[in-house]
């Protein structure tokens, strides 16, 4: 390492510390302060540490709303990501393996899914017609509908790297189409599936706008909405508000620590090919 590389590293670290690390430090410090001290909003070392008190108080607030929110968000995320894996891989598989006029239709759908902003009020109207408005099922299906385009593209390009010989061997053995897909192909897609799980679960867990529109009501609260609800309730209790932020930030942090490489792969897919 040259002296120049070392010095620019030191300068970059100093700048990154101020710009990127201090805001997180601020969140943490606010979360452990007393109510009175947090209300000052100063960037200061807490005089008393109230981590545990604040933690339990946030959990208990509004009749354990945060726990309910964690439960709801987890259900939505797990169900929607499972749906995205199976449905996205099935479409990507047919799209890649069976060239036909229909592919143009599928690509048009994918392009729309990536670009067109969802028409929110008409979607509520459709959900109401189906009896799925304000229901976790409806929310799961919405997340699947909005995430499909990305999943299909991700799977299609990965399936292109799997040799057709494998399908043909299974066909000769007399396997049915669904058996070929679920027993031969889907297990081979594991690397891209892990990527999809990490990227989409973070996106769905962090989603605020869609639950705001499609999942109103106290019993349906999701973690991002707790922040928003508490923002008005905790107006004078910044310590609790920031403790809530801290708790909501932890799941993505864990995923980030363990799956950094997969996240990078998923988010840069297409960057090289354009």
């Amino acid at each position, binding site marked *: *390492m040259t002296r120049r*590389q070392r010095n620019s*590293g*030191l300068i*970059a670290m100093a700048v990154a510390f101020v710009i*990127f690390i201090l*805001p997180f430090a*601020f*969140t943490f410090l606010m979360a452990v302060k007393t109510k009175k001290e947090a209300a000052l*909003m100063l960037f200061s070392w807490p005089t008393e540490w109230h981590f545990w008190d604040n933690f339990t108080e946030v959990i208990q607030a509004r009749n354990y709303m945060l726990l309910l929110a964690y439960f709801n968000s987890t259900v939505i995320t797990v169900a929607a990501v499972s*749906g995205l894996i199976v*449905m996205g891989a*099935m*479409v990507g*598989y*047919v799209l890649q*393996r*069976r060239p036909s006029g*229909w592919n143009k239709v599928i690509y048009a*759908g994918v392009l729309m*899914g*990536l*670009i*067109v*902003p*969802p*028409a*929110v*009020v*008409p*979607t509520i*109207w*459709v959900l109401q017609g189906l009896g799925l408005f304000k229901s976790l099922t409806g929310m799961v*299906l919405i997340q699947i*509908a909005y995430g*499909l385009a990305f999943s299909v593209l991700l799977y299609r390009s990965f399936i292109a790297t799997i040799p057709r010989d494998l*399908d043909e061997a299974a*066909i000769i053995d007399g396997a049915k189409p669904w058996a070929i*897909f679920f027993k031969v192909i889907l297990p081979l897609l594991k690397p891209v599936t892990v990527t999809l799980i990490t990227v989409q679960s973070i996106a769905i867990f*962090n989603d*605020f*706008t869609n639950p*705001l529109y499609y999942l109103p009501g106290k019993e349906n609260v999701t973690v*991002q909405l707790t*922040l*928003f609800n508490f*923002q008005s309730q905790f107006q004078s209790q910044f310590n609790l508000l*920031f403790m809530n*932020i801290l708790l909501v*930030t932890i799941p*993505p*942090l864990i995923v980030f620590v363990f799956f*950094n490489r997969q996240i*990078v792969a998923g*988010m*840069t897919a297409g*960057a*090289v*090919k*354009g």
Partner: protein
Amino acid sequence: MTRRRSPYPYWFVLPAAVVFTVLFLVPTLASLWFSLTRWDLFTASFIGLDNYRQFFKEPFLVQGLVNTVIYAALTSVSKSVLGLLLAVLLTSGILWQSFLRAVIFFPVLVSTIGVGITFTALMHPTRGAINIGLAAIGIHGPAWLSNPELALYSVAFIDLWKGIGLATLIYIAGLAAISPDYYEAARIDGATRVQQFWRVTVPLVRPATVTVVTLSLIGGLRSFDIIWATTRGGPGFASDVLASVIYKQYQAGFYGLATAGNVILFALIALIILPLTWWFNKREIDL
């Protein structure tokens, strides 16, 4: 003899197609009709283009449209320029390189609402850490989020802070795809570092630029949660964008007007993204 069935049956597409059609395509098509009506979710009465007329007549709705374009342009230009510079820095083998990449990328993954609330506190005009820090070096900081002239730009800055990591990451992947031979050839020809950047890096990292610009433009035009968590479009309507206008009209029960806003947002995105994509593809052939 029966025709052999394809091992790749179309019913594989069916589950996805049903979900996508019912919950995405149908509402999108329905929005074209409902935007022409006065609508309370149960009965819709046709009123022609009145919603659109109102949209382009009310000054605050027009401002939302203008703000959307400013916001998207600012965030996507700043993300692509700074993202490329950071990517070049973070691929040059500097000290703590991979740790720095992680630090810059992490905000991409955290809750937008959490970031918004944190920055609302940091940007407080008198007690916020930003202005206290500026005062320490003798600068009187402005009211970042409550000054109508400044609010939109402050929110755009928060968006940049949160999103720059993704742009940097995409550029790092793009830079990795450039063969070192080009740089070697440029060095032999006596090109300086700056010349190498302009003559080799910028043209060859183009696919990454296309991705960053397109993604951040689409994201910027649709941006809602960061604005809602910081200013809620205020003060007044100073930082309203189309997405926040749509939400406000929806809350107020003007479903037809909200839907017209949605159609306008769709049209705006199409008007910006489609020519841009066409232009990017055309330039690719020239190269």
